[in-house]
């Protein structure tokens, strides 16, 4: 099973970390990825720049509508993602527990579905 782990935190809170603390957290993330790669669970992943850099695009009547910022103002913002391979939900939860920013914000775990010619799951 593939699970996408979406990492969220309050950007304002994270801004309050010193550069040294922020770097330390990032090194932890590198270790976390290294461990997940070594155990064969890591498929893909990336941290994201802050929502200040986000742009939202909609296509209506075949025309692109472009706006500044994320699509929704929320207390915690999307900060990165991990695509993991796990046997089941219990394993996915155990792996996601090690994602360092889970201590500050949260990790949403979603099973991935396959695109098919027909009979697609909703």
């Amino acid at each position, binding site marked *: *099973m593939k699970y996408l782990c979406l990492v969220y935190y309050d950007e304002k809170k994270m801004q309050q970390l010193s550069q040294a603390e922020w770097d330390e957290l990032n090194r932890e993330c590198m270790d976390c990825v290294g461990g997940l790669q070594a155990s064969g669970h890591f498929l893909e992943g990336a941290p994201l720049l802050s929502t200040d850099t986000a742009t939202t695009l909609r296509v209506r009547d075949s025309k692109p509508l472009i706006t500044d910022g994320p699509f929704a103002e929320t207390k915690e913002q999307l900060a990165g993602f991990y695509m993991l391979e796990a*046997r*089941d*939900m*219990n394993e996915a*939860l155990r792996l996601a527990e090690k994602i360092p920013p889970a201590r500050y914000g949260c990790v949403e*775990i979603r*099973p991935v579905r396959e695109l098919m010619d027909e009979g697609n*799951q909703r």
Partner: protein
Amino acid sequence: MNMNQHISQLIETLYREESRRVLATLLRLLHGNFELAEEALQDAFAAALKQWPAQGVPDNPRAWLVSAGRFKAIDQLRKRGRQDTAMAELARELDEQDEEEALDEDAFGDDRLRLIFTCCHPALSMEARVALTLREVCGLTTEAIAAAFLVPVPTLAQRIVRAKNKILDAAIPYAVPEPGALAARLDGVLQTIYLVFNEGYSASSGESLLQAELSAEAIRLGRLLHTLLPEPEVTGLLALMLLHDARGASRVDAEGDLVPLEAQDRSLWQRPQIEEGAALVVAALHGQRPGPFGLQAAIAALHAEAPDADATDWAEIAAIYALLLQLQPSPVVELNRAVAVAMRDGPAAGLALIEQLEVRGELQDYYLLYAARADLYRRAGQVALAREAYRAAIERTRQAPERRFLEKRLAALEK
């Protein structure tokens, strides 16, 4: 009674007593697919009704039912497998399984634990866990659960369907958690059972018979879990439920009004059940650091074993509340401790502790804070302050029996 009637009665009894166990094992064989397992279960009982009158009742009916359910599931999977490769794969796997191993008697107990842990998985909402546990582990009908929780039947049915879909789609495994995760996961199971118990326990008599039956169902669940997994906190929860339930008959009077603990007719308490609960408390607290359910059960045992309110060991109760507070900091536990301290050291000591809660802005909408304060003022002879607190408590009640009880107290002060 002729032979056929005898057999169909036997099958009815088996359905009542064994269908949950058969389901639990079929779920393991079918990787937690509830829809397939339930269908296989119904097919197995239908086959028994058809075949047993002619062939006789098998020596081990449960094993026969599991085996029949397994074959029916293989048939069903093969049919579906024409369109769905995952189903075809499962059919092959089931077919190649060694039957003896699949039907191993020792695994049956574990299967029921698997079912409990799956229904109470933390990835499911609490209300889904409660509904799924009552439906699948206890075998209650969707209609009965909906009536007990005062929700429309389609709402509850939808809740169960969504939970089953999530189990399947998110691959929530049909498994007992690994030792490292067991304590945390067990806590989720215990919270679910205790919620079911309280839902029944807090329903006053006559409000809903089905609702009151939830307490009995929760105790049955507690007993089952205690047999399967006798961890100290499981023992503690079972003890707590037994001790509360044993005092149930004296909690409301003939008019359906609440009777406070100190005024309850203790001769109505069920002594054998109190003794059973008290013995379990000893087991729950034996030899290790007690957990929150064990501590709460210990407090309940001290109340249940006291001849009256004055002769209750309030010092011990206050001390246990202090321990509980360390384990589970909560303003409600603080309030309970304040009441116990007041019984030990006098109303002023309790009022001072309640004051602290109020300064911090805790429990401002909780009627029991004002009711407790009113009671302490009344006992201290400060009538005006007591009246004021009773009025504040009445404003914050939600249930009629609670309000009537407080109004009676207030009226008594105004005489």
